[in-house]
């Protein structure tokens, strides 16, 4: 269960006036240190301190280091401490005895791993407190590696101590870690040892108690849940409501018309469907598991399933679509395939299928992305594809798409353009959504087996162009029940100017052949997108999602780089699954929703994190360092 109200403990008080001033701020706990070597020691002065001036709502905590039971019981009795915090080597038995008289907080010192004996204290303490190793009774100003908290397997709520300042405290409380009960503020709030700065304490208390802006209310309250009798197919001209269409130069018209008719001819043809289904099973490795994530479910207090698209051959959902389109390209007698790629997942999937079908393959990839996703470049090359780095514009997905389309314009007869997301001119968005819709098709029967119902309460997916989200939403769109939530990449923040959150900051326009929502400036020039994840770094969104947003059938929330990276670490440590950074955006949604115990939530885990190891390994140490510098 998640601990809802967070505990704020201010520790190491010793001065009467300062104590009163801090008491007025009503933290949940105030700590007094009984440890002679500490500059904050009160062993000899406790009798003179106005303990009774502290408001009754504030629990007074005696902090002791390896003291006897008599000592502990003595101070609890004489000075009316409501809790005792034990540093050192007291046994579980000791805690159990003491607990008959007051609350017991058992402190553990750590640096890079949780102490092995934590489990022994389960059930005999009210709280644990995790502090930085190195100094007795805290106050060193150093933090420990907070990522280890994801490894906590216990059920006793815990506080985090050790070098926390305002930002670190808030960051920590944002981590979706079960049983995290609160923070312990000490040296970083001091003017001199033992004297706290009430202003700084006040600022942190106020911020923590303020309803967190992103949790305020229900971000999905405007969702329109209405049963409709139709799956999300666009009209004859490729329109989903006012979005979509085919805004292509005449140079592409014949190509697109040909594709439209071939697509229409084969999509419902038995032979084609069988060939597609066979490859999905035998080559892609479908059906992918729908995994009940136990620890994640505990963490968020609901029932969470992961749709394991990361287990598809090549490591992402992208292959589903590529197999379908490549079969069409064969039907059209095309002699070569050209594709764009962002994270390289679509490029790898395309190179893979081309190798399997014996078709030459050219992949355009932004120069910047070739650096971020080196391994995928190597994979494509090994698969025999030609990777062409794109140096125009922002050197990311948008520009790779421009170049792929230009190549197509220049080679209209023999080339099939195999688009990687549910973007582009009609019929691409519809076609990609259909090929990906196998995801929601499987979720339905898998969920029926596991939960006895086909429709989950939530489906969560990340949205770059929108193909995995389109596939995961597809068969739920008409049910008027399932809350469909997309995560778009906020980058450094929706208003930072370094974002890819198209729905949040975009407006209607035309790009890459479709009318949709775009990130553009006042003159209609497309602006560069930013996201730490190469696969979400696109300034547009597929027309189907623009329509789902417009009609409020789906909700879209922006997830920052930091939130995604944190969610990736959370999944790695709680479930033993390293997600792609793209997919981590979908996981980060869990932290933004108000979920009930009975809610069944499906997170579409679109890809695995192998390709992102370099980004992860560069990010985390750097991030810890930044946190410590703050």
């Amino acid at each position: 269960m998640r601990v809802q109200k967070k505990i704020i403990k201010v520790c190491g008080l010793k001065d009467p006036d300062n104590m009163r001033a801090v008491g007025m701020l009503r933290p949940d706990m105030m700590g007094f240190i009984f440890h002679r070597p500490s500059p904050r020691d009160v062993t000899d002065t406790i009798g003179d301190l106005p303990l009774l001036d502290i408001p009754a709502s504030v629990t007074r905590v005696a902090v002791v280091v390896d003291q006897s039971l008599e000592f502990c019981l003595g101070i609890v009795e004489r000075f009316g401490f409501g809790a005792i915090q034990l540093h050192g080597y007291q046994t579980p038995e000791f805690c159990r005895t003491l607990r008959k008289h007051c609350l017991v907080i058992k402190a553990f010192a750590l640096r890079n791993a949780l102490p092995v004996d934590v489990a022994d204290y389960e059930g005999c303490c009210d709280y644990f407190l995790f502090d930085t190793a190195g100094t007795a009774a805290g106050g060193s100003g150093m933090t420990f590696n907070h990522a280890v908290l994801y490894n906590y397997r216990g059920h006793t709520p815990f506080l985090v101590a050790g070098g926390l300042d305002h930002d670190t405290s808030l960051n920590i409380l944002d981590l979706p870690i079960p049983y995290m009960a609160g923070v312990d503020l000490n040296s970083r709030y001091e003017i001199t040892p033992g004297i706290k700065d009430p202003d700084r304490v006040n600022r942190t208390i106020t911020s923590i108690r303020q309803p967190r802006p992103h949790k305020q209310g229900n971000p999905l309250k405007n969702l329109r849940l209405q049963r409709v009798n139709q799956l999300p197919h666009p009209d004859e001209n490729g329109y989903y409501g006012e979005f979509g269409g085919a805004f292509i130069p005449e140079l592409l018209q014949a190509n697109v018309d040909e594709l439209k008719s071939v697509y229409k001819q084969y999509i419902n043809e038995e032979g084609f469907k069988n060939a597609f289904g066979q490859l999905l099973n035998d080559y892609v490795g479908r059906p992918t598991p729908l995994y009940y994530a136990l620890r994640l479910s505990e963490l968020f207090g609901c029932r969470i399933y992961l749709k394991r698209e990361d287990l598809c051959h090549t490591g992402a959902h992208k292959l589903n679509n590529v197999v379908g389109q490549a079969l069409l390209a064969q039907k059209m007698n095309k002699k070569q395939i050209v594709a764009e790629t962002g994270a390289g997942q679509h490029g790898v999937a395309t190179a893979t299928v081309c190798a399997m079908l014996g078709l030459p393959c050219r992949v355009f990839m932004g120069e910047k992305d070739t650096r971020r996703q080196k391994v995928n470049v190597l994979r494509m090359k090994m698969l025999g594809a030609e990777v062409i780095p794109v140096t125009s514009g922002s050197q990311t997905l948008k520009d790779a798409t421009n170049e792929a389309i230009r190549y197509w314009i220049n080679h209209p007869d023999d080339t099939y353009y195999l688009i990687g997301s549910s973007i582009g001119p009609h019929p691409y968005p519809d076609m990609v959504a259909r090929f990906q819709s196998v995801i929601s098709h499987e979720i339905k029967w898998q969920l029926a087996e596991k939960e006895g119902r086909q429709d989950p309460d939530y489906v969560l997916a990340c949205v770059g162009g929108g193909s995995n989200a389109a596939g995961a939403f597809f068969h739920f769109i008409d049910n008027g029940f399932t809350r469909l939530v997309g995560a778009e990449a906020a980058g450094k923040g929706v208003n930072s100017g370094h974002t890819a959150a198209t729905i949040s900051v975009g407006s209607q326009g035309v790009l890459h052949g479709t009318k949709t929502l775009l990130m553009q400036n006042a003159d209609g020039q497309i602006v560069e997108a930013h996201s730490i994840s190469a696969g979400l770094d696109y300034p547009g969104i597929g027309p189907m999602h623009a329509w789902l947003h417009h009609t409020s059938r789906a909700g879209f929330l922006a997830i920052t780089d930091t939130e995604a990276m944190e969610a990736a670490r959370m999944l790695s440590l709680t479930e033993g699954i390293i997600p792609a950074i793209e997919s981590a955006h979908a996981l980060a949604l869990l932290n933004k929703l108000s979920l009930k115990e009975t809610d069944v939530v499906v997170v579409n885990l679109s890809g695995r994190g192998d390709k992102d190891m370099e980004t992860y390994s560069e990010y985390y140490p750097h991030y810890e360092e930044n946190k410590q510098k703050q």
Partner: protein
Amino acid sequence: MSTKPNDSLLELLHDSREEKLLSVYITAGFPCLEDTMPDMKTLARSGVDFLEIGMPFSDPLADGPVIQQSSTIALQNGMSLGVLFEQLSAFNGIMPAPSLLMGYLNPVLCFGLEAFCQKARAVGISGVILPDLPMREYLESYRKVFQKHRLHFIFLVTPTTPESRIRQIDEVSTAFIYVVGSSSTTGNQHSDHGRETYLKRLLDMNLKTPLVVGFGISNATSLQQAWRYAKGAITGTAYIGRRMKGQSPDKAVSELFHQLGLKPRSTSDRQAQTPEAETTVEAFKPLTSKLYIP
């Protein structure tokens, strides 16, 4: 602001003499923001018959590297539709030569279609080319606005456009049909013997609308070939490339003409198009009934 029907372009296209036309594409605001007008004037003075003014876009899908780069520079210079109209308004409604705006749909939609057309018309623009606005969309929701503001809308045909569609384009075209000489982005030089047959096929279709060949006109051979089958030819990359190398408009034009095997032409026969000679504007001949005035 001019109040006469803006038919100077039609006048040119349907000139009873068998004169062939040359058009040059420039990118507005390139190489420097204030270069739009001097370039237009120089080109017109040198005998270029009509002009295409490129409205730069961040993602010019149908353009090759040279025009892409000129667009990027123009945007960096601060070019926008607002700035362009401001610049063009200095011509007081009379362009040095009939002029078209060419670009991509998104900036136009962002500016507002109605406002765009109204401004374009007010500064004296004859027509608009938006390659990524397809015919279906045009007919359904855009045509009425262009018509209201009496702007021509120019369609493209390519070697892959089927005959039925060419006929349809011919039907709805009001000025000329922009013949894309090869399946290619701008500036690409295909060795293209298929082009001859293609142009011949178009000519044999006996279309009502004059043809103007664009894309890939880069030397005397391609120009003469275009002129053999069509009323005119458009070149862009060859001129932009010279400007990019730092040549002055005058030098770029004279070298371009040389490259195309042309002598710099005199403007005396087309003085009516220069602002100085505004008084002769009255001398328009009545248009043939075949012509549509938008």
